[in-house]
């Protein structure tokens, strides 16, 4: 999809936003991020829950282009691997109701090329009316090159799908999961799906060589206009993101600050946020500190559900 934005526009936007992110980190004058923890189930009630979250966080999308980025990974008729279609639909309806001019759903799975078939098997076609018209396969989208300023990784530039680059707001809708390479995969890691397979392959192995954690931090800096709703109704523990076991937690975790959202998810999973390297790179220890995050709704102790960890990640236990 091309919304008429030139490559120069993309470069200017990304460079400007990156500079802002870095400046605010240095000055330490960021407002305290707000993170909501709400009870949820995969029922009709999730539509109201999501709508309330968007109102609570004053997500202003009037007249804006919104791209919802779920986590589609593997064929799974259950609810463990992929973001649940009801949550995706609830977000779609929620942003439409908030006045967004255009809301799309977009994803670029890391291993499988058959994205639409994955979505079909995950129940997206069944749950979301006109899904095929609303969905963009980011792996096959037209791309533009973006220069990375002060990158954390060894990459100086990356190609990104024009759909993602043209979005006024990117909404990360990941599953709450453990991950065998990075410890936990939440809203920030979900942006790996913005990297186009048509350029980098399946898997997007260039990013592994450039440093997975560093690339996640680069993606976070490159796409600063974001909002996150983590699907923790049923998460995944153990050998995630594919071969783990279902872990019911019964919550959604949401906010504008992805580092704060992910740090809160880690605490719910009983994982040390500061032990997740990409969070530390992207945000620094202060921003991950519980005292610096304004929690809304349920308290962490009320919903805390220790996630099983594989042997290699036992040291991240909170």
């Amino acid at each position: 999809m091309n919304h008429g934005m030139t490559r120069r526009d993309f470069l200017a936007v990304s460079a400007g936003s990156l500079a802002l992110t870095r400046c605010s980190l240095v000055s330490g004058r960021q407002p305290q991020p707000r993170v909501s923890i709400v009870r949820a189930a995969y029922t009709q009630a999730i539509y109201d829950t999501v709508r309330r979250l968007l109102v609570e966080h004053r997500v202003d999308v009037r007249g804006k282009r919104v791209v919802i980025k779920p986590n589609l990974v593997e064929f799974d008729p259950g609810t463990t691997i992929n973001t649940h279609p009801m949550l995706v639909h609830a977000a779609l309806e929620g942003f439409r109701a908030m006045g967004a001019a255009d809301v799309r759903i977009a994803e670029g799975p890391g291993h499988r090329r058959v994205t639409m078939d994955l979505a079909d098997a995950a129940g997206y076609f069944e749950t979301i009316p006109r899904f095929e018209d609303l969905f963009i396969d980011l792996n096959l989208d037209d791309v533009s090159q973006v220069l990375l300023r002060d990158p954390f990784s060894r990459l100086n530039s990356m190609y990104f799908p024009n759909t993602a680059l043209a979005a006024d707001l990117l909404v990360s809708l990941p599953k709450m999961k453990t991950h065998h390479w990075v410890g936990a995969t939440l809203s920030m890691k979900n942006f790996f799906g913005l990297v186009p397979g048509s350029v980098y392959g399946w898997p997007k192995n260039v990013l592994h060589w450039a440093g997975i954690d560093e690339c996640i931090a680069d993606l976070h800096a490159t796409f600063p206009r974001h909002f996150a709703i983590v699907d923790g109704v049923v998460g995944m523990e153990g050998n995630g993101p594919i071969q783990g076991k279902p872990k019911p937690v019964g919550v959604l975790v949401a906010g504008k600050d992805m580092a704060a959202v992910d740090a809160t998810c880690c605490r719910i999973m009983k994982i040390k946020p500061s032990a997740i390297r990409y969070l530390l790179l992207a945000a620094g220890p202060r921003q991950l500190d519980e005292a610096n995050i304004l929690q809304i709704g349920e308290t962490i102790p009320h919903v805390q559900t220790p996630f099983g960890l594989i042997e290699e990640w036992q040291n991240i236990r909170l």
Partner: protein
Amino acid sequence: MRSLQNPDGGWPYRKGGGSSTEPTVLAFLAQSVDQGDPQSIERGMAWLRATQRQDGGWPPQPQVSQSTWVTALVALVSRDALGVSRHARAIDWLMGQTGREASLAYKLRNELLGEGGGVIGKHEGWPFFPGAAAWVTPSAISILALEKARRYQMAGGIQQRIEIGQQFLIDRICQDGGWNYGRANVLGVEADSYPETTGQALLALHGLPPAKLEKPLAAAQAQARRCQSAEGLSWLQLGLQAHGITAAGPARVFPHRHVADTSLGILAQAALRGRNLFLE
């Protein structure tokens, strides 16, 4: 298919998109099945000729300033149509590519750390993107491209590289008999195989005796029965047909979602009728 061809002669992955190398090659091959529309074919070929890079490779899209694995796909089209010189440069580019794990430095690192289980870097495959590790898909397509090139005896070492590439694939057979996108085992856990990569690997191993591939051929037939995508089924049909087996698919008919999987469907149907363009 013809209605989706862009004015510049290339094909997009999906309607309204810019022209990309992969769908253009697959659409070109699909049109070649029944001789297609000569004008459409020539415009597609002109787009391919025009997008070759100085280094001999092709980018996935013209706006990408890097040659990638799609070069192997382009090298599958007829040398006469592409041009002898262009084809030769493409093969040279492919011969120069290996997975980064095959480098001496990486092998040494693995030795020191005791990682890799003896498989990583042992046999050289091809990466999707230069500088990354080798994977099943680009390796299988590169082997097929080199097999076509071997007929012209264009460069020394092609046969050896094909054999090493085939060994790369054999090293990566999963416990269930098929192929995953990469290694068969990650962090001590067996990986499940995929229909797409299993079909591609079987295509690239078409010259091997059936006795050596008994388990993969059985796995591919089982996958075909429970496959959940048109693209997966097409690759399985192409791979199995290369070994003389007609795959019985599931009862369900899958929708074709974009130019690439529609083209693959046409190519798979042609293979079932006895014409496998990946091997011609």
